[in-house]
């Protein structure tokens, strides 16, 4: 391959890695300021993630403990992968889906509705139906924003943010005291328990095992890769994303692609919700609906993973591991207090997003300068209507 190709690949891998390292370095400074040893703290956090399980030199006694932590990490990684795909797919169509959180929440609602009904259904059918409901609910929520953009040019960033709040408040109303979907305990604001027949199969572990959602997440990454890179539909989506005018010139239905891309993104986010309630939570507590951040962290994962399948998998593992490694349960409190560590995780996440934003800005400025130098006839790739 030529130099250009090599350079672009190096940038695609090197920049996110450098970003992450930088974020951890700055995070280390914060740790040092609190009077703790940053290297020891990171060491403890890493142990907390359970990732040492994969090293062949880990002693078998430590391995059992690491396995428990790694199971936690994977459980949190699964929804992050799906939530990141919810951002990545519309992104390839030139849209920024901020609505992953709302789509995640309506996905939970769909999975709960199906999962808390049909007690006598066979497990494969029940699970399939519950997943399908979650995907469809999420897709519908995404499609609303897509249709608004296609019909009147409403910008998806604004509409998906508003749809997030509609989903969150709507779901809170559904499960709150005397809400239509509140569970059997009349004084507890939470949903009923998902029937065992609708729960995802356990894959690894006993205490809180990794569930079959991990196959779903891996499958979703493969589907995403093939759909985007190897199908005519994905070709059209990318064409619209890069240059909607050229897509129109080529006869690609631009408006239809907007709706489809946001629907597919919404379906991924909906499945993320299903994995959480069908995989390990089994019910939803009203207070947790507004507190959940999965959809938003998904944005950071997609950004760090550069919207590529492999990148998203690795970035999700990083963010999932960070969350588990800094949790009260996993982190050794004598080395670094978990209540500080939880904030450290948020600081590192924030720094990563900030640095990626700075990179995008740099690239943008650099392109502007290059355009100034060699004036080209280029038009804005998409028209954004004033709101």
């Amino acid at each position, binding site marked *: *391959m*030529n130099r*250009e*190709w090599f350079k672009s690949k190096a940038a695609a891998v090197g920049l996110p890695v450098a970003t992450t390292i930088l974020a951890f370095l700055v995070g280390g400074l914060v740790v040092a300021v609190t009077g703790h040893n940053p290297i020891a703290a990171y060491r403890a956090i890493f142990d907390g993630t359970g990732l040492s399980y994969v090293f062949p030199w880990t002693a078998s006694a430590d391995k059992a403990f690491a396995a428990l932590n790694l199971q936690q990490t994977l459980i949190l990684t699964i929804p992050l992968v799906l939530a990141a795909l919810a951002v990545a797919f519309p992104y390839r169509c030139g849209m920024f889906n901020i609505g992953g959180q709302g789509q995640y929440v309506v996905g939970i609602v769909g999975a709960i509705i199906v999962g808390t009904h049909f007690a006598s259904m066979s497990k494969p059918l029940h699970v399939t139906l519950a997943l399908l409901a979650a995907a469809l609910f999420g897709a519908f929520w995404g499609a609303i924003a897509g249709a608004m953009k296609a019909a009147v040019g409403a910008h998806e960033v604004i509409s998906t943010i508003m749809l997030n709040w509609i989903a969150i408040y709507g779901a809170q109303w559904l499960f709150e005291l005397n809400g239509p979907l509140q569970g059997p305990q009349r004084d507890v604001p939470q949903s009923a328990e998902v029937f065992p027949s609708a729960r995802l199969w356990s894959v690894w572990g006993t205490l809180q095992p990794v569930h079959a959602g991990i196959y779903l997440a891996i499958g979703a990454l493969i589907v995403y890769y093939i759909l985007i*890179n*190897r*199908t*005519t*539909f*994905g*070709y*059209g989506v*990318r*064409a619209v994303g*890069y*240059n909607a*005018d*050229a*897509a*129109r*010139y*080529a*006869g690609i239905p631009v408006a239809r692609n907007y709706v489809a891309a946001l629907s597919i993104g919404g379906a991924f986010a909906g499945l993320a919700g299903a994995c959480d309630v069908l995989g390990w939570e089994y019910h939803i507590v009203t207070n947790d609906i507004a507190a959940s951040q999965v959809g938003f962290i998904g944005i950071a994962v997609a950004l760090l993973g550069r919207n590529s399948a492999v990148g998203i998998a690795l970035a999700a593992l990083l963010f999932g591991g960070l969350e588990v490694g800094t949790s009260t349960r996993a982190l050794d409190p004598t080395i670094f207090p978990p209540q500080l560590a939880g904030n450290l995780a948020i600081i590192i996440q924030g720094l990563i997003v900030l640095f990626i934003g700075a990179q995008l800005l740099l690239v943008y400025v650099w392109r502007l300068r290059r355009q100034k*130098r*060699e*004036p*080209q*006839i*280029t*038009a804005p790739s998409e028209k954004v209507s004033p709101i």
Partner: protein
Amino acid sequence: MAETPLLELRGITKRFGNLVANDHIDLDVAHGEVHALLGENGAGKSTLMNVLYGLYTPDAGDILFEGKPLHLRSPRDAIQVGIGMVHQHFMLIPVMTVTENIVLAEEPRKGVLMDYGKARETVRDISERYGLAVRPDDKIEDIGVAQQQRVEILKALYRKARILILDEPTAVLTPQEAGELFAVVKSLREQGTSIIFISHKLGEVLEIADRITVLRRGKAVGTEPAEGATEQGLAEQMVGRSVLLRVEKKPATPTDPLLTVRDLHVNDTRGLEAVRGLSMEVRSGEIVGIAGVDGNGQTELVEALTGLVSPTSGVIEIGGKDVAGGGAEASFEAGMGHIPEDRQRFGLVLDFTLSENLALREFHSPPESTIGFLWPRRMARRARTLLEEFDVRGGEPQTPARSLSGGNQQKVVIAREVSGDRRVLVASQPTRGLDVGAIEFVHRRLVEERDKGRAILLVSFELEEILSLSDRILVMYEGRIAAEHPPTVSEAQLGIDMTGGRRAATA
């Protein structure tokens, strides 16, 4: 030369990364001289002028003004010493009057207020002195392009410019207007103003310049007096090899009409009627050229023909099939290829690879794909064949379109639009922004396609192009076909028709 030149550039070098845009360029301009700077796109003309205008700092070399070294940190410094520049894209404020635009930032004052009366008087003085007639109280948005150009020139003269840089000044003008501009240039020269005239049109350079400097790939290949220079010689210097200036073609043998347009009405993006009842026909085996001043409905006509916009009424038949309002795919399916005016906006997805770009029209059908799945290898194989056939340089199938030069990008568009069974080809400004070598290729290819029996509609603002390529010329004025001519028609006659015949009395 006994006299110190007014301006001297010595060994100017400017690098952008690995690219050497200006490589030790020497240039001198005498008092009252019209010095033409000739070169292809990317030869370094604009970079050099931006150095001279204080926009770029050179990496090496000196600028001497009246023998004294000059350090320019910004255009303000350049204006201070008397260097004025008229950019290709005018920098005027549409809602302000001619006078206000000219004196902007250097207004004569009365207390804290601008002395409009005095400003107008000054403007009138300068415009009379150089024969640049303008109406000082008109608003910029109400006057034509040629008038706006005069305002730009006046702006520089108001700031006491002794050297005026004109960047491709005739690109936006009709032949008559260009003639008037030349008169102005001559009058400026007579009164001692030096002029650097940037152009890639050989004919006008020979007509107006005293001396000509040719740039090629960042280097000055030579300076010679205009007297005795030939178009052929200059073209060879520009390109570095011999080129065919005239398009060689056999007489057309048109047969059946392949494109028929009847009573077409199209609105522009603002909802105003831009094409007003246009009818025409393009037959197999002929090139029909549409001449006209920009903004007379050409863009809307092309967009309607190719399905990018729906006409409000009328018939567009491609090979006997009405495609009006059917979208881009209907026009394409009926056999129409489209080389769009803005290749980077419509013709290419710049971030796609060449292989993907070449499949833009046919990706949804075999052999590019089956039941919705792409075949990247087949796409690449087809791309390789096309890239070779159309002599696209600097690109493999996996190269992003963005990294190609303009000329090679255009070749990719042409390769895609003429391959396959395209019976009608609409080429809109197919050589805009291309260099001489690429223009030669595009012209030759269009004639080849004509000889294969395709019907070709050529829309261009370059009269030379229309005249040399077309077998039949239609003049478009205010949304209709105003006149039809054989290719032997004179530029002057076309110019008259292009402006609605209003100048018939004065021409």
